[in-house]
């Protein structure tokens, strides 16, 4: 059983200031599907810390594309919806092509806090790990509904049993990768099962990883956009099939 190292400081720790060389070589990948109402504010917030924001518009039917083009540094457009996993991999491929040294994945619905980006980067910069995974259960999850908490805890247990990796939060969209890690982890699960797949790849590649406390803000908007608890069964099915045949 692989156990994730976890930072012990609380999520409220002071934001670590990043050297400009790190800021300039960090790319934040934001997968977005019909995120018009939240996207502009999310990009603006990220760009206060990191200038390179790559939005992958995953076949949205609303104004996500135009907002991304106006606000983000780079906008990539999936002509048809391919799922969050596919969008993240597209963003990572692009960031690597642009010479990214560090890559962050960040949800477009406004549930993540930009202050957590330096916290995620810090253990990678210190050479402690290649991948930092955000954990709302080590940090803070504001307004987390009980059913969602249960589903997330079931996912943690599932990851522990099936992947043999001990995590406190298996499905957090906020992650940081070193270039080496981003090159090694290729996401093949196009839809939501990519989170479990990433854990698999971490185990297969032997990359060092660490959980970092982060804050998640649950709002009516992010809850409406998030996966339904029933969707969890579909994720498990896709993940298990992928595990068997890939």
């Amino acid at each position: 059983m692989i156990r994730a190292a976890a930072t012990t400081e609380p999520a409220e720790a002071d934001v670590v200031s990043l050297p400009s060389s790190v800021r300039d070589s960090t790319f934040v990948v934001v997968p977005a599907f019909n995120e018009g109402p939240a996207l502009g504010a999310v990009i603006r917030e990220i760009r206060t810390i990191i200038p390179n924001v790559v939005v992958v518009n995953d076949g949205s039917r609303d104004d996500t594309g135009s907002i991304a083009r106006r606000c983000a540094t780079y906008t990539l457009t999936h002509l048809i919806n391919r799922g969050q996993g596919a969008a993240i991999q597209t963003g990572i491929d692009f960031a690597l092509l642009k010479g990214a040294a560090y890559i962050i994945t960040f949800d477009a619905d406004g549930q993540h806090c930009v202050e957590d980006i330096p916290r995620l980067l810090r253990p990678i910069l210190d050479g402690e790990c290649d991948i930092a995974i955000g954990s709302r259960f080590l940090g803070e999850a504001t307004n987390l509904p009980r059913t969602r908490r249960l589903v997330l805890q079931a996912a943690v247990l599932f990851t522990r049993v099936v992947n043999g990796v001990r995590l406190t939060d298996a499905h957090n969209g906020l992650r940081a990768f070193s270039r080496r890690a981003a090159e090694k982890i290729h996401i093949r699960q196009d839809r939501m099962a990519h989170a479990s797949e990433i854990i698999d790849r971490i185990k297969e590649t032997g990359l060092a990883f660490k959980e970092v406390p982060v804050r998640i803000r649950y709002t009516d908007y992010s809850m409406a956009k998030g996966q339904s608890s029933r969707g969890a069964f579909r994720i498990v099915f896709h993940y298990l099939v992928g595990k068997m045949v890939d």
Partner: protein
Amino acid sequence: MGTLTLFQIIVVGVLGMLFIGVVVAGIRGWSTRREAFLWGTLCFVAAVATLRPNLTTDLAKMLSINRGADLITYVAIIMMMIGFWTTYMRLRHLRRELTSLVRHIAILEAHDASSSDATADHAMSEERA
């Protein structure tokens, strides 16, 4: 073999036409030889089972199944499941290829705000306003 019933004539007629179609498709390269062989064999076996129903009963008894109809049901279920799985896997493969294509186009046509007329910063101020 006694006189054929109307049902047997219709079924064997349809299977015969299907068999010819499969053979022609295999020869002309519209389908792979392997697919043509599998479908041809299936048509042949179905036609034999229609013309000689006792054969399936005999085979069922050899396998300790009471009735030929039961044997056909079991075989049909297994074949259906194999069919579903094969179709699912092909669909999965196609989806993956589609994703690669969509990804390739997305990266090729990436919009870079710094190279467009309006800078991202200017656009962001507009967005705030």
